[in-house]
């Protein structure tokens, strides 16, 4: 096995046994980037320069992770390195401060190899809405990697970074993880600080992990989780060690499978793959039962109302005055606002700002935003009801596998509808993890998702780990089909 194919815990083992050095690890990833990035296009900014010096800089750091590489989604603020959100608006923006997660990453001495591509301001599910480039799916370069954390997922799947941080507002970690055949975790809302994550929808955004396997998920979550006084929505719980959940045991675990997730909209091969997952869990000693979660459609409608409303307000600060793109074409203040925003934002971002402004505007607030917030209460209640009976809920991550680049770009509603499996989790603020469960007949990855109770990441990690240990799907490798 090449070094770049190893997981982080495998790297640690080899380092421990002195079979490899950190320098070799960094070099392996750097050469992988120079080999694959031209095909995959996962990075917006590559920072694999001066690796030896960077390694030197962390030589006194006692953390076992010091000197290991990582990739960062380009909506997480990194001091001194551009944070663009894949937007023309922030093409040259350099943050003067580090996001709280970056402080944690830096404290461990991890070395960022670069900032990863995404849909502009995390709005999208295919990474086609990046101002800079379209990232390719490593399994088939004509297909999308999913989104919005498509760069993060593709970089991990193609071995250009061993693991990466992403963000998930409506599925933006889980869906690309599923399309690229890797593990992606969206933690419970409030587990990871949002300070320094450029906001899309504040009540839904959450930073999470994209890794090659479940064990690495637990390790990386240990690093980034924890209370932050800079984020009032961050929960002040005692810190947990998620690696303790890495147990090959689901005996007695109660799994609910909502029948609503197996309707017409779900691809036949995806359904079949999930059915096999259910069989596997039964075989491993879990109790699996059909349940009802009759709120998916409401949740999706609610999601687009709330996410766009919050986005319309969050993105007001991009006005061409203090930072960001300023149009050359202005005579007065109003021109600066209108032209900078119209030229600096892409069409999907503008569409969502308009939708969000509309649902908050006078006369429509009650019909849309207020109702949506009530539906949100309904969705939370429905999940809570199910969690009285089940420890985890199992569902497809996406209704289909990765699709062809360009095939959905002109139909935003169609694109939105494909978020139906992931969005309810964000609406209810729950943790969700994508686990690869095979390939379809075209060789594209399929994933399933486990949804947990609030702050019960441990249980979904344990269930995901057990599945992974007892199947072989991680051994599948992307082929970079052209």
């Amino acid at each position, binding site marked *: 096995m090449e070094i770049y194919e190893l997981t982080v815990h495998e790297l640690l083992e080899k380092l421990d046994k002195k079979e490899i050095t950190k320098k070799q690890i960094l070099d392996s990833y750097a050469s992988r980037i120079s080999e694959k990035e031209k095909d995959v296009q996962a990075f917006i900014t590559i920072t694999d320069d001066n690796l030896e010096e960077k390694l030197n800089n962390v030589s006194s750091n006692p953390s076992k992770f010091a000197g290991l590489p990582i990739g960062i989604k380009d909506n997480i603020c990194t001091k001194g390195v551009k944070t663009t959100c894949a937007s023309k608006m922030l093409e040259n923006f350099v943050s003067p401060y580090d996001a709280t997660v970056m402080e944690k990453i830096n404290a461990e001495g991890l070395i960022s190899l670069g900032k990863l591509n995404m849909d502009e301001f995390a709005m999208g599910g295919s990474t086609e809405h990046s101002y800079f480039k379209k990232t390719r799916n490593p399994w088939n370069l004509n297909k999308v990697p999913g989104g919005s954390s498509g760069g993060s997922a593709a970089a991990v799947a193609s071995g250009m970074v061993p693991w990466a941080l992403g963000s998930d507002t409506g599925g933006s970690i889980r869906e690309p993880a599923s399309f690229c055949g890797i593990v992606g975790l969206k933690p419970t809302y409030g587990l990871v600080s949002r300070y320094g994550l450029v906001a899309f929808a504040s009540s839904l955004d959450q930073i999470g992990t994209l890794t090659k396997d479940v064990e690495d998920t637990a390790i990386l979550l240990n690093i980034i989780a924890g209370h932050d006084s800079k984020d009032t929505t961050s929960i002040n719980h005692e810190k947990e060690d998620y690696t303790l959940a890495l147990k090959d045991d689901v005996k007695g675990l109660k799994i609910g499978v909502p029948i609503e997730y197996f309707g017409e909209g779900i691809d036949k091969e995806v359904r079949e793959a999930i059915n096999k997952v259910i069989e596997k869990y039964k075989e491993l000693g879990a109790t699996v039962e059909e349940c009802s979660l009759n709120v998916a459609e409401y949740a999706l409608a609610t999601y687009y109302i709330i996410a766009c409303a919050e986005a319309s307000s969050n993105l007001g600060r991009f006005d061409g005055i203090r930072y960001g793109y300023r149009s050359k074409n202005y005579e007065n203040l109003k021109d600066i606002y209108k032209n900078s925003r119209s030229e600096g934002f892409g069409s999907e971002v503008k569409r969502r*700002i308009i939708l969000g402004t509309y649902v908050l505007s006078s006369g429509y607030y009650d019909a*849309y935003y207020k109702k949506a917030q009530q539906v949100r209460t309904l969705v939370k209640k429905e999940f809570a009801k199910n969690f009285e009976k089940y420890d985890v809920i199992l569902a497809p991550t996406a209704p289909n596998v990765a699709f062809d680049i360009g095939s959905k770009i002109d139909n935003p509603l169609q694109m939105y509808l494909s978020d139906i499996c992931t969005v309810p989790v964000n609406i209810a603020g729950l943790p969700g993890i994508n686990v690869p469960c095979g390939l379809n007949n075209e060789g594209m990855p399929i994933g399933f998702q486990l949804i947990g109770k609030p702050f019960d990441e441990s249980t979904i990690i344990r269930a995901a780990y057990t599945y992974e240990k007892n199947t072989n799907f991680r051994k599948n490798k992307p082929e970079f089909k052209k």
Partner: protein
Amino acid sequence: MQVSREELLHIANLADLKLKDEEIDTYLTHLEEILNYANIVNSAPIEGLEETIGMNDNENVFRKDEVVPSYKREELLQNAPEEQSGMFKIPKVMN
């Protein structure tokens, strides 16, 4: 859900966005389609349910009233499109 051209332009104006003529029809169609879909929320069984405010049980999260030294001005202004005398420069605003 019918959205008029005027309404769309009013909304775009509130959001300080300028739409090109050729964009307006596309945005109108998309906005209508999405709003029609979003209307599902009006048929949801939400009688008597409170609106969700706050995503978790956090409440009363406050800061102590203690000064933390401010940032260096150069750092805060490093991304400014136009700067003068330590301030952000914009076209003249009549007040």
